[in-house]
Structure formats: C-alpha cells, structure tokens
C-alpha cells in the first residue's frame, strides 16, 4: 500500500507539532549508528563528556548499551560508537544514512548471510530495513518489519521506535483505532515500567492528534518523571506537557515550561521544539495584538531551529521544517502589518525566501500547506 499525500501530511504534522516521537527516535538517529573499524577488537563508545569507553558491546537495549564486564552506558551519555572490525557493516550503514536505500538493502541482505554477524548489527539491520520500507511508502511491509523487530529484539535499542513505526503505518492507513490498540498492546507487553512510559509517549502523540489533550497529559507527566528511562524521555515528556498547556489555552504556563526547557542540556530537537513552542506562543500573541516587535521576537525563536539547532543528516528534520515554516509565517505577518511599502516588500521577500528553502529541502513538507 502507498500512503496518500493527505494521510502523510497529517501524520507528519502530528509528529512535528508535538515532537514526542523524537524522544526515543533520537537514540537511534542522533548517534552515528556505526563507525569505522578500529584496530583493536574492542568497540569504542565516545561519550558526551569528551571521554570514551572501550568495551565489547554485547547488546544495545532500548535504554543503554551493555558491554562485557562493563557497567551499562545510558544512551544519554553516548556521542558515537566505533564498532570493531565492521567495514562491510559500516559501508552499508553509510549508504543507508546517505539515503541510498536500495544499495543499503542489498548490502543488508548480503550481511544477513553471514552466520557470524553480531547481534547488534542484525538488530540495526532489521530496524533500518523497516525504516527504508516506510520511507519507500511500503506501509504494510514496513509494519510487518517493525513487528519483527519487536518480536526478535524485545526491549532492544529500537523497541520504542518500532512501536512508533507501527502506529505511524496504521495511521497512514486511516486506522487510528488500530494504532491505539497496537500501542496499548505494546505497553502491556513492555514488562518494564520505564519502557512502558516511553511507549506511552507514542500513545500521547496519538491522543494529541485527536485533540484529546486531557488524556495525553498524564502520559507526558509520567514520562517527565519516569525512573530508569533515558533523560530524553523526560525532556520529551516536558515538551509534550508544555505543548498541551498551550493547546489548552494556558499560554503563560506553557511559556514558562518551554523557557525552562531551553535552559537545559537537552537533545537538539527538544531544544528546537521548545523554541518553536515559544515561537508559536509569541507569534499568536503578536498577531492578536498586531505587534510587530512581538512577531520579531517569535521570529527569533523559530530561527534557533533553522540555524543553531538544525539537524544533521540522519537526524529528525521535523522541528527544522516547523521552524522554517514558522519563520516564513512570521516574516509574512510582519509584512502584513508593515505600513511602509518598501519594508512590506522586504518582509514579503524574506518570507518567500524561507518558503522556497523549505520547498527546496523538503518538497513534500506538510508545513508548506500552512504557508501562503
């Protein structure tokens, strides 16, 4: 089955507006999945504090890396991983990250023939295969592949993202009830309260998409105070809570929550999401009050997501798209309010430039529909 444009648009808007899916997604996307072979037999995990740890990785779980004779390393602390003796795997992952899915899938198939292939590589190949199918709009096949990831690698590195993938696939098929049911089942089967909380973020997103903020909020609250989950789950929970506050009309509360998020060492997409949230609030107020300065404040909030917190290849680009669209809208609003003819045109041109950039970089971006 192929996704219809409108379903895809709706789906991506949901993802971006509330950003919750990034909570676990960033564990996979934010960290280079594989790296060059090292001369020693040990894998090297580069940590966010500038140090590194050499270990033989045995498994990559949903919350941490586990190595032989080493304490688990939370994904929060991981900057990158260099796998030992993995040239072919590295090449395949490079192709995948570069978007050459056909080439990557061919290489994955060849790698799978190797009986001695490490389990962590098999797990990554299984998930990336599902992701590639989804990217190629092969929804049913993608759902099956995600289910296979859940079954073969329970509590694995991609557990939450696989649940999210299944939900996305079902939403694309206009089966919201099925999506809710699949997520509930995954929560029930989680067997780990922290993992269940992380999966709860997927459900929260589905609820928000149905404007059921009151039902979503407790799930975000639970995520923000989850014990034993990666810190990013907590940040996502806070972001979701703030978003709900704004949607419920509590702009002041939302602003405080977003601002406090901008001051912590959270993943880039969370920071971009928080600044985008602030942009939404200020832009809304600026338009109501017809206040150009406030709209410019909003603009500067959105611009964080298009510049300093822009994603790298392989990272989620949704907040970036949202920020580009937000900045284009703000330029447009200022142009509408500006009485001076020359300046009006200047701002209108600026709005168009950002719109063109969005169109060029994300030709199917759902945010294009929001722009004039």
């Amino acid at each position: 089955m192929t996704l219809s444009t409108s379903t895809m648009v709706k789906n991506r808007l949901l993802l971006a507006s509330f950003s919750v899916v990034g909570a676990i997604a960033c564990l996979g996307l934010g960290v280079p999945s594989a790296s060059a072979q090292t001369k020693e037999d040990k894998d090297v995990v580069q940590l966010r504090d500038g140090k590194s740890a050499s270990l033989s990785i045995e498994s990559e779980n949903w919350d941490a890396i586990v190595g032989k004779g080493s304490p688990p390393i939370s994904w929060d602390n991981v900057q990158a991983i260099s796998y030992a003796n993995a040239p072919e795997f590295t090449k395949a992952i490079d192709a995948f990250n570069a978007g050459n899915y056909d080439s990557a899938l061919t290489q994955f198939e060849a790698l799978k023939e190797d009986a001695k292939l490490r389990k962590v590589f098999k797990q990554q190949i299984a998930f990336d295969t599902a992701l590639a199918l989804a990217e190629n709009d092969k929804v049913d096949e993608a759902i099956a592949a995600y289910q296979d990831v859940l079954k073969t690698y329970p509590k694995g590195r991609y557990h939450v993202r696989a649940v999210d993938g299944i939900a996305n696939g079902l939403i694309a098929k206009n089966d919201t009830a099925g999506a809710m049911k699949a997520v509930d089942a995954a929560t029930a089967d989680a067997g780990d309260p922290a993992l269940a909380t992380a999966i709860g973020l997927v459900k929260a997103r589905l609820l928000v998409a149905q404007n059921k903020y009151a039902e979503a909020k407790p799930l975000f609250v639970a995520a923000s105070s989850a014990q034993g989950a990666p810190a990013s789950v907590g940040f996502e929970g806070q972001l979701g809570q703030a978003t709900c506050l704004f949607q419920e009309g509590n702009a002041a509360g939302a602003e405080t929550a977003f601002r406090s998020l901008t001051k912590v060492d959270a993943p880039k997409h969370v920071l971009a999401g928080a600044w985008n949230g602030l942009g939404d609030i200020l832009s809304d107020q600026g338009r109501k009050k017809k206040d150009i300065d406030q709209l410019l404040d909003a603009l500067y909030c959105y611009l964080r997501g298009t510049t300093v917190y822009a994603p790298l290849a392989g990272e989620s680009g949704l907040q970036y798209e949202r920020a580009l669209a937000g900045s284009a809208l703000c330029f447009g609003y200022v142009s509408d309010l500006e009485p001076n003819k020359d300046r009006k045109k200047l701002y209108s041109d600026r709005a168009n430039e950002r719109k063109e950039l969005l169109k060029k970089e994300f030709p199917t971006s759902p945010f294009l529909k929001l722009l004039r």
Partner: protein
Amino acid sequence: MQMDVMKRLAFVGALVFATPAIALAQSSAILGRDDGAFARQLYERGWTDLAEGVIKAYEKLDAEGKADPLAVLDMQAIGLDLRLDVARRDSDLVRRKQVITEVIAAKEKLVSEHPRTQVGRDTRDNLPDAYRMLGESLTAALAKESDPAKVTTLREEGEAAFARAETGLKERLATLKELRIEENQAAADVQYMNALFNLGRTHYFHSRFYPAADPKRGQLLASAISTFEDFSLDYGDRLLNVEGMYYIGLCYKSMSQYDDAFERWDYVISVREGYEQDAQGRYDVMPEVADLISRSALQKVLLLTETGKPQEAIEAADDFWTKIPDPATAGSGLAVLAAKADAQLAANDAGSAGDTARQLIALDPSGPWGSRGREVLGRMIGGASGASIGPEEILRVAQTDFGQGKFDQTLDDVQHVLQAAKGDAKEQDYGSSALYLMGQVYAKRGWFHEASLVFDTAFELYPRGADAPNAIAAAMDCYARLNRDEKRPFYKSRQKERGQSLTAKYPTHPAAASVQLGEARELVADGKFVEAAKLFQGVPPGAVGYEEAEVGAGNALYRQGIALAADKKPAEAKAAFTQAETTLKKAMADLATAKSKSLDPAVLARYSGAEYTALMTLASIYVQDAVGRPEDVLKTLEGADERFANDSKGIEGIWTLRIRAQEKLGKLEEAITQFDALLVKQSDHTGLAGAAGVLARALDQRALDILKADASKTEAADSSWHKAVGYYLLSVQPQLDTRANAKFAELEAVAKRLLEIGMRFNGVAEESNSFVGWRSEKTADTQAWEKAAQLYEVVVELDPANYRARIGYGRALGFLARWKDAAAAYASLFDQEKLLKPDKSGFNPEVVSNRPELVNAYLEWGVCEAETGLLEKSADRQARASEIFDKLVANTLNKSPLWWNAKYHQIRTLYERGMYEPADVGIGTLERVTAKDFADAPTGLKALLIALRTDISKKVVKR
C-alpha cells in the same frame, strides 16, 4: 624532513644574499650568466614570484643594453615557462588554451632562432610538456563545449598542434639519424636521444586527446610504446630509459593492460636496488631517481585503488615511503601520501586515512597537499567514521570550506564541531568559533536575522570562548545593518545592548571604541548632522576615540553641507563645507601624531580607518559644486593608492572620487590612462577591482551620454562600451577567483549589464531584451555575452534560488545560440519555478503575478527546445517545444506580442516537425482570426509569418 628543511633554508639563505645584488644590479658584472641557472632553480622550486623578480631585473638591464645576451635568452625561456604555469591555473579554458598556444609559438620561435644554444635545446626538449598542456586544455574545453561547430574547431586545432609537434620531431630524428653515429658527434647523439624520447611522450600525450573508444587513441598508444622500446634498445643504460618505462606503464594503463603497467612501474621502482641501503633499509638514491620512483609508486597506488585493491595500494605507498629517504621531497612524494589516504578510505580504514591526512597537513600546512589532507578529513566528517575526527580538525575543515565558498557544507561542518566539542576542555573556544563561522555564512547570504541570532547564540552559549567578543561585535553590526534598512526600535535597542555588553565585558576589543561614538552616529543616521557634530566634538582630547570623534564631526558637518546644498542654500552649504574642511585637516594631523605613538595593530588599524574616512570626506568636499575645487581632489588623493593598497573597498572609493574629479575637469581619459598604468604595474589586480568597477560604470554612463547628445555617434559610444566591458570583468574577477568573496548581487548586476551591452553591440532592438526573434545580420560580437553567461553561471551556482539569474543565464546562452545549454538552463529554472499549476492546466496566477518575467522566459525555453530539436533531430525536444508554445498560446492575452510570438513558434515548430497539415490549418486560422497578411502582428513578426505561410504552402497539397 629535518634535512629537507635545512636544504630549503640554505637555499633561501643563498637567495637572501642574492636578492640585494639583483635589486641593486647596475651592470652585467653583477648579473651574470649564472643567474639564468639561479632563476631556473627558483622557478623549479616553486618560488615563481622570485624568479619573476630576477627576470624583470634582466629585462631592465636588457633595456639598458647591459645584459648578457645568453642570460637574457635564458630568462626568456623561464618567462615562457612561468606563463605556462599561470595558464595552467586559469579557470577560463578558452583563455588558458590561447595562452598555451601563444607560449608554444614563442617556444618554437626561440628554438628555431637559437637552435645551437643550450637554452634552445632545453626549450625544444620541454616542448612536449607544453603540447601535453595544450592537449589537456583542449580536452577540457571539448568536454564543456556543446556547439558542434566549436567542437570541430577545437578538435582540428588539437590535431594540428600535435601533428606539427610529431612531424617536427620525426624530421629532426631523420636529420640526426646518420649524423649521430659519425665520429665526434656525441652531441648529435644526445639530441637524437632527446628527440626520440620526446616523440614517445608526444604520442602518449596525443593519445589522451581522444576518448577511450577512439581507434586513434589505441594507435597512438601503440606508437608510443614502440618508440620507447626502440629508445630502450639504443639507450637502455640511461636514466631517461627508466622514465620511458614509466611512460610505457602509463600507456598500458590507458589500454587497460594493467599487469603490463604494473610490471613497468615495478621495474622503475626496482632501480633503487642498485643503490646502498642504510640501517633503516632505505636506498640512498639520487633525487632524480627518487622523483621517478615516486611517480611510478603514485601510479601504482592509484591503479591498485581503482581496481579494487586498496590494501595492496596502501602497501605500495608504505613501501615507497619507508624505502626512500626524505620521501616527502620526491617529486610525487606527497601525492603518494594523498593517494594512500584515498586507498585507506576505500579500504574502510577511516581512522588510518585520518592519520595520513594529518600527516599531509603537517608536511604541507599551507600548501595544496595540506588542503588535500583537510579534504580527506572533510570527507570523513558526518560519515560513519565521524567519531575519529576531533573538533579542532573539523573546525579547520569548516574554515577551509567557508574559504572556498562551500557555505552549505560549512553549516554542516559547524554542527559537527558543536557535537564533537561537547565535553572537550576547549569546548567554549570551539563552540564560539564554530558559531561565529556559522553567523558569517548567514551574513554572507544577506540573511542578517539568522546571522544576528547565531552571533548572539555564540556569546550566549560560549561566553568564555575565543570568538565570543567577535561574535558580539558581529551581532551588533548585524542589528545596525537591520536597523539601517528598517529603522525599527527592535533592532536599535538590540544593537545598543550588544554594544554595551561589548564595552563592559571586552573594553579592549577593537569594536568597543566605536561603540562609544555610536550615539553620535545614530544622530547622523537620523539626519541630525549639527547635533551629531556637537556630540562628536564633545569627546575630550586624550579620550579613547578622540581622533575618530574629530573625523566624525568633520563628516557630520560635510553631510550638513550636502543637505544645505540640496535645499538650494549654497552660501550656507559652503560655510558648512569650510568648517568641515578645517575640522578634517586637524583630525588628520592628530591621527598622524596618534599613529606614531602606538604599536598595537588593532589600534593602528582603527586609526587607519579613521584616516581613510577623513581623506575621503575631504576629497568629497572639494568635488562639491558649492566648493568647486576638483583639482584639490587629485592633490588630496596623491599617494592614497599606496597607503590603502590592502583595502580593495578603499581603493574603490579613492578611484570613485578621482574619476568624478577628472570628469569634472573633462579629463576622464587621464583617469583611464593612470588606471591602466596601475594595472600594468601591479601583477595582482585584486585590490583594483572596485576601482575597475567605478571606471566601468563611468565609461558605461559616458557611452549613454554620447548617444543621448547625438544618436549618430554610435562608434564613439561603442568604443566606450568596449572599454567598459573590460573594466566590468576586471571588477568581478577576484570574486570569481575566490568564491568565498563572491557577492551575488554584484556579479548578477555586472552579468546583466554585459548582457545588455552585448545586445547593444549586436543590434538587438532596444525594446526587446530577448533572443527570440533576433537574428544577427553580421558575425555576432559575442564577447560580452560569453562573459555574461559565465558570470550568470557562477551566480546560479552560488545562489540557486535566484530565478532572475537563471533567466539571465538562459538568455545569455540563447543569444550565443548555445541552444542545448540554454534549454538545460531554462529546464532547471522551470523545474524550480512552478509556473504551471500542479495539474498543468495552465499558468499559476500567483507565480505569474509575483514573477511575471517567467512567462517570457517560458517562451525562450520553447524556442531553445525547438532549436535544439531541429539541430539534433530530436522529436522529443520538438514535442516539448510544441507543448510549451501550446501552453503560452492558451494562457496569454490574445494578440499581445507574447501571444503572437508563441503563435508563430507554435506553427513553426509544427512545420519543422513535418506536421504540415496542422501547420497549414494553424497559419490559415491565424490569418483568418487576425488580419490579412497578419497586419496586426508586431512589426518584426509580420515578414516571418508570411515567409512561414509560404514555406507551409509548398508542403501542402491544396484540395
């Protein structure tokens, strides 16, 4: 490496002693014959500027009749090689080819005039290298050329050049063949040997002129191999024979006979075994042998990598690197290392590739191999091996990318720096520098909102970083810029806040001093000149910025004078100008004193800036009508070019005023003469670009004025425009050479003007700006259009979203009748600009309203497709053209000029496609619904329509 450094130092030492002798040279007693060898050595070691210096010294001596004739000949030969070097770096393929052709002609002349001199013999021996370069530049030009006529010309030119070289060598061999075996003819034998070797090389270079599948290529390669084998029979004991083996290897590689190629290169490498080994197993070979071995090792490494054996390639590189002493000094030593890095990447050993890249950077930090090392690191950034590169290295790569104008790549690099710097002890430094760089990218694009935000964030996130103060200063500038454009308190207050932060936190930063004068400057910006002058004059002597405040006061008074003059108050204006003149003269004297008391480069730079402003303001006063002292402008600006030589913008300002003054004095030609003299004097014209732009615009305007005064004086106007074209090109050349400095808007403006001047030269109707309907009545003067196309191409490359530039590019190509290229340019344009509605049912009204130029461009696209279709006999292209014309006819106002043109081309394309019946119906209907003989059609089209009707009628049998 230590040894190499010592050698270089010794050589430079010799040079240091030699240079004063050259500089002071008064007679041939000082500059003797040995200086030819000395200059040659300078040239061969890469100190081309110094070699040029020696040559110039000789030219001077020669002019005085004091030079040794043989040494002069030597210098001429080196001068020709220098020209070849310059040509090799020229990105303009046509110009490169032209220069090489000229050098070859000059070399051949030198050889024929001085056949028995050593210089003549050496020149003859290195002629094949010049032919190789010619062949390569012709091959490159062929690859870019799509015009079949030009392709044929280029091919013929290349054929003729190589044929001439080969015939010459064969004749020479025939002459020497018998002579060389006679007694006492050892010299003839050496000449025969060199000629035979060069014939082999020329055959090889000639072969590269043809594509792989061309049988001529195979024949020439076989001839080259056979010649080198003959050479081997006669001169097997010579070092040149070893080089011949190297070439045979290259020939076999070209023939895909890789084993044979490896065998020959291994033979070359094995020559080292005739030398003694040291304790580390390195062979004590002569430098010439090391060079040859390095070339063979390089070829081996490259071919092994190409054929999927990177591990063996790495081993081959290591074998060379460990068995030859000082491998980096061998001719291709560093190239071997670079090839090794590529092999390591191919072998997925990114960590080792990084180590090799770092070794390259360490060995050649500022040279091309260092850049190559950084490129290798750049390729590793963001790949699966990203983790192995540190933030400092990524930052260097980012700076290199920025310097090369790769802005998108720089933004990506910056993100990697930020990621890699997390937790590093120098995170603050790396973070601030990376974001400072990111801000510069946005500022370069003119996106000052983004730039200001990023500069702010650099300071906000990394306040202790090395570039934090620069970032605040840059943020302040961005807000000032935004405020200047928009006059909005939002920006003004941010500008002020950043200024306050800068002065409070970094009081010694160069920008801090200027902040203190900010308030007065704001008054100037608001047009309150008298108040501003008072505020400037309130800064007490001895305070930081006093001298700048004096200049500010003078400048404010000058502006007051301008305002009064505009209000038609000449007497009051003159008084203000006089006051300004007095203030500025005092300021300049105070600045001179202040400069003598400081050694701080930052402070001196500030004073220099103020001095420039004072000088320019003073000169501007003299040029005012109310003052009327243009001759004083020239006096004031005497020596200014030398004082501000490093400031290209400054030079532009100086020349603007100088030209204005000369114009007022009726002496524009003198300005041109002076400027041309400066061009000859300075080999690097970068700093003169701005001034060239000023002259170009002045000449452009003069041409317009000439025609306005007397429309019949077209010759005088055209002459002025021809000169203007040259200066326009000079004005943008530095931007083309260094893309990081490219200003899209300026390049685009020059391209547009060149396009228009080209239209003027070629008699395109004034009311038209398109090639549609234009036919040249004589051979087109295409120089301006060629250059316009080149400039537009660069603008499109650097600013792809610029649709106007894309139109300009297509239009320039259209005027040049490069239909296929033009069609491709328009196709890219319309791929980006969605003129058609998504369902293709018609034009998108919003796009038409916002970008009306696109509709005309759409017609031009159709014409280009139709012309290409006709030339290439491509039914697809003709069908696309028809589709375009159909859309235009359906979506444009009936009987508008555009509609008429679309209609004409619609029917014409049907006719050219052999669809005579529909064409006949079309032309008949058109005449019926308009007027007999198309009387309502635009003037130029009537005749074309009638001719088309006649053509169609000949093809259709009327029933």
